[in-house]
């Protein structure tokens, strides 16, 4: 159980997907203009990432069986695109109010690196856990599945956390006296650098 919790914390904090290996920076900078849109994007992305990674994990078993692993990028991006489409249709049908708040962020997720990154990572759980110096404590296929689920949830929540913190910072930065050329994205990137130092170098000793 401890290993599972450790993996969740590592994926969320110390090897945060935005700060430690910059993935998803486009939507991180693009959707962080207000708190509300950050929360919407975060929820939508977490949902899509978890669903897509489960499908990709199972699909990869088929690809290995048929010996066509070189098709993985192509298959995974199609899975991501169709999951996004499916979720959009599903939400539109069953919860129009949720669709109103999440709807515009859903198409953006297709070109978000985070989802494809998670899908690409979870297909090789041994390498992933080995890289983080963890072991599959539950054991077997079932353990792999649990760890994969936790990893995808943790990584997506890490993106959510980074996006939310940055959107709060950005609302403050709008009123700050910043030299003209540096206002907007440039100063946002400098703030991100400080946050990255905190997440990567500051929290790394805890887990």
């Amino acid at each position: 159980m401890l290993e599972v919790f450790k993996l969740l914390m590592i994926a969320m904090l110390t090897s945060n997907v935005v700060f430690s290996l910059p993935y998803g920076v486009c939507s991180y900078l693009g959707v962080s203009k207000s708190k509300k849109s950050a929360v919407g994007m975060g929820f939508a992305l977490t949902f899509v990432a978890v669903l897509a990674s489960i499908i990709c994990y199972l699909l990869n078993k088929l690809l290995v069986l048929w010996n066509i692993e070189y098709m993985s990028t192509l298959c995974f991006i199609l899975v991501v695109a169709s999951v996004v489409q499916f979720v959009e249709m599903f939400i539109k049908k069953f919860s129009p109010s949720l669709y109103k708040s999440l709807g515009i962020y859903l198409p953006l997720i297709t070109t978000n690196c985070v989802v494809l990154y998670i899908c690409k990572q979870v297909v090789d759980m041994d390498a992933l856990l080995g890289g983080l110096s963890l072991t599959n404590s539950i054991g077997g296929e079932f353990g792999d599945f649990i760890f994969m689920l936790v990893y995808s949830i943790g990584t997506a929540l890490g993106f959510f956390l980074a996006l939310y913190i940055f959107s709060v910072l950005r609302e403050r930065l709008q009123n700050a006296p910043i030299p003209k050329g540096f206002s907007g994205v440039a100063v946002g990137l400098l703030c991100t650098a400080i946050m990255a130092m905190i997440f990567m170098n500051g929290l790394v000793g805890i887990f």
Partner: protein
Amino acid sequence: MKKDGKLATFVNPLIRENAILVNLLGMCPVLGITTSLNNALGMGVAVIMVLFFTNTFISLIRKWVPNEVRIPVFIVIIASFVTMVEYLMKAFTPDLASSLGLFIPMITVNCIILGRAEAFASKNGVVDSMLDGLGTGIGFLISCLILAFFRELLGTGGFTIRNPFNNELLFSFLPFAEYKMPIFVQSSGAFMMFGLILGVFYCIRMMMDEHKKEKAKKEAALKKEAENGAPVKEVK
């Protein structure tokens, strides 16, 4: 600086409409792999190849693709070309491919490629799309190299260049190795350096715009004087 025709489609995306510095698209690989000039060059060449071929191919088939399914079709085309480039790199430049790692398959979801396919190649002819792909790719390479230059200089204290095909050491110049700041090789340094470069770039652009405005004002004043019968001065 504004040019028309074929040359403009190639020259404009280099600096004026640079996808990274001006439009802020597709920054993940730029921040991720610019730890050394070698990696930046490798990634830049990969992106140029993918952009060139996808732009060409998409503009070739643009008339047969129905409007409703164009995004999935583009993504499939992009993913196939990225897979080809990935396996080519794994075969011919294995060390470079392993140091770039997952960033090569991630070119698939790079906003620049889908953005150019959607905004340019699906609307323009083949030759224009080829030139646009090349120009945008070289613009990406330029911004990668700028960032990698400063990061490698500060992070390792100099430059080390290896032959990508056989990993042979070609060139090593480390005068400041004792004063290196390893944080610039990490991702937090990437954010910091890119923020600074972006800020300086915007400042220069603003200064240039102001300069242009003043020049135009002066020229207009001179013209007015000439019309009013005052002695005509030469305009530089």
